[in-house]
């Protein structure tokens, strides 16, 4: 499932392919509908609390801004992308599946200053092998989206693939949907998280959840010099958020999640540091407010062609999410 999900195309604002794929997977699990912004919502009606589970479908990528006379394609990033990782990377366009490579001048032609600083994204272009604007226009139009061309690889204990942020969350939601809970459960595959939590904003508005739970693939830097800067670590279980730039987790729900993890002996870690934000930022402030928390799979190298997760972390996150839902069925917060 994760292979299918991560191989699929779905840059923010252009989530059709990934949405269709997920829709096919979940069609028998509840009432399935797509809202005006493109969120895919699966409603499993029930008598219990109204719970919204959210994972975003969209991934970071590129959008074509102009095509030069020599057939080179200029682009802008969609979502937060580090320009240092882009040079010589392979990309693929969503609409036509045309492949290209991100070009930049070779080291021989770079000045000493250029060698020592990050390249400006504006100096980069996508080369699809076209030699003129006319030729390029046969395959690519202004406004077309591209993402990294990258394949899912099973490494044994680890998985590497693009877009694990947040297809890993999507995979967990699909697995959760296979179960039945005594909850009025909405599983929402949101759009446009990477550009500003936009899908989640309108989904939460229409659903009016009592409890929101965001499932993410979150920053993991468990290889930098100083352990205090790791944010999360792979292999140490799901990361439970306390606070990030978009929300402070509801204390009661936070404590409940910890209690559940400890009761079932599921390894967990707290997400350290407050950088970054996710759909919880939009959900908890919706209308009259919503009790909201985030549980994440630690993911190395997010927003790049290859991100990496530990399989045990995936399994433990799934287990924890299921157990938390069971606990919400049974016991008031």
């Amino acid at each position, binding site marked *: 499932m994760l292979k299918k999900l991560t191989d699929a195309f779905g840059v923010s604002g252009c989530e059709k392919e990934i949405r269709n794929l997920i829709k096919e997977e979940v069609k028998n699990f509840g009432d399935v509908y797509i809202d005006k912004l493109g969120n895919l919502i699966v409603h499993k009606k029930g008598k219990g609390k109204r719970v919204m589970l959210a994972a975003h479908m969209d991934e970071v990528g590129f959008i074509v801004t102009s095509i030069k006379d020599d057939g080179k394609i200029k682009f802008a990033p969609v979502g937060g992308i580090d320009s240092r990782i882009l040079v010589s990377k392979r990309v693929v366009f969503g609409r036509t599946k045309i492949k290209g490579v991100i070009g930049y001048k070779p080291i021989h032609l770079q000045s000493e200053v250029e060698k020592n600083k990050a390249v400006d994204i504006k100096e980069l272009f996508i080369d699809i092998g076209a030699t003129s604007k006319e030729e390029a226009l046969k395959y690519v139009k202004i406004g077309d989206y591209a993402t990294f061309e990258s394949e899912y690889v099973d490494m044994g204990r680890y998985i590497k693939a693009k877009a694990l942020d947040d297809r890993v969350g999507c995979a967990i939601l699909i697995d959760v949907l296979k179960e039945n809970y005594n909850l009025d459960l909405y599983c929402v595959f949101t759009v446009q998280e990477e550009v500003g939590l936009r899908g989640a904003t309108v989904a939460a508005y229409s659903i009016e959840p009592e409890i929101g739970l965001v499932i993410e693939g979150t920053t993991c830097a468990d290889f930098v010099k100083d352990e*205090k800067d790791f944010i999360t670590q792979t292999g140490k279980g799901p990361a439970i958020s306390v606070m990030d730039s978009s929300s402070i987790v509801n*204390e009661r729900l936070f404590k409940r999640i910890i209690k559940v993890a400890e009761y079932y002996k599921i390894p967990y870690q707290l997400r350290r540091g407050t950088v970054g934000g996710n759909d919880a930022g939009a959900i908890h402030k919706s209308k009259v407010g919503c009790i909201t928390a985030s549980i994440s799979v630690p993911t190395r190298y997010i927003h790049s062609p290859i991100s990496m997760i530990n399989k045990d972390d995936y399994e433990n996150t799934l287990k924890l999410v299921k157990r938390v839902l069971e606990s919400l069925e049974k016991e008031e917060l």
Partner: protein
Amino acid sequence: MEILKKLVSIYGPSGREDMVAEFIIDNIKDYVDEIQKDVLGNVIAIKKGKGKNKIMLASHMDQIGFMVNFIDENGFLRFSNVGGINPYSLLFKRVVFKNGVEGIIAKEQKADIKELSMKDLFIDIGVGNKEEASKKVQVGDFAVLKSDFKDLGDVLVGPAFDDRLGCYILIELVKNIKDTDNDVYFVFTTQEEVGLRGAKVAAYKIQPDLAIVVDVTSTGDTPNCNKMVVKLGEGAAIKIMDRGFIVHPKVKDLLVSIAEEYNIKYQFEILDLGTTDAAEIHVSKAGVPTGVVSIPTRYIHSDSEMVSKKDIEAAINLLIKVLEKAFNL
């Protein structure tokens, strides 16, 4: 003043305002018709009048603070700021956790003082190792600045006047307004310092006809400071604009006309940096005519903020008259 002194001593960083909320509820519940806590922890107290206008008054309960990210082998704590904090204002300041554990913020000795950032700072709670530290403090725990309340005569000094002073003023209003033509919703909001979050959902729920936020603002009256017209002791500040908000002209006129009618000292405020709950409230749903009455405050977000008693008194007098009056917007 006893209530204000207590208010500024209660632990209540953004997202962890429960103890402040309980104190406020205890102090006002006998004076209001209805009181509730909403999903994000806002305390909403309603005092019913003749129902002419539905007025929302808002002050935030939360204060800036720190969240522990990491405990090192020797028991030193690394932290993130909760709300906007200048790292220089933290050097060698005392902090306190919810459970009463105290510590000192210090800097890595070799860190460059000219480029000081939160990453260079740590909290020392006086233990020898990680294990001992973990008995007192966990990753994810929040702390606040600790200092005491002092009455210096004309002015008061203490922590968290931003915005416990607003909360204090609202409590005074709850207790002192008599017959009012208006239904008044006193809202003690959460998470202002991290993004005006409580006020957003409270305004959505209440849908007021008029909102007035009571918060602190900076001053331009200290040596070699940024230019700003607001001065300590020159009266309640009626906000004209800040980064996120422009006062509704009718609300401004209302505040000014009442201040002049009753001879209450006021000044205008234009704030270059920062904003308040008003920024979220005035764009709630179909819009809410909103104003802000600010208390001029020196050294905001430090452990020793300074305010003038006269300004507090002026703000209370002004707001009592506004609430009691039957006006047409």
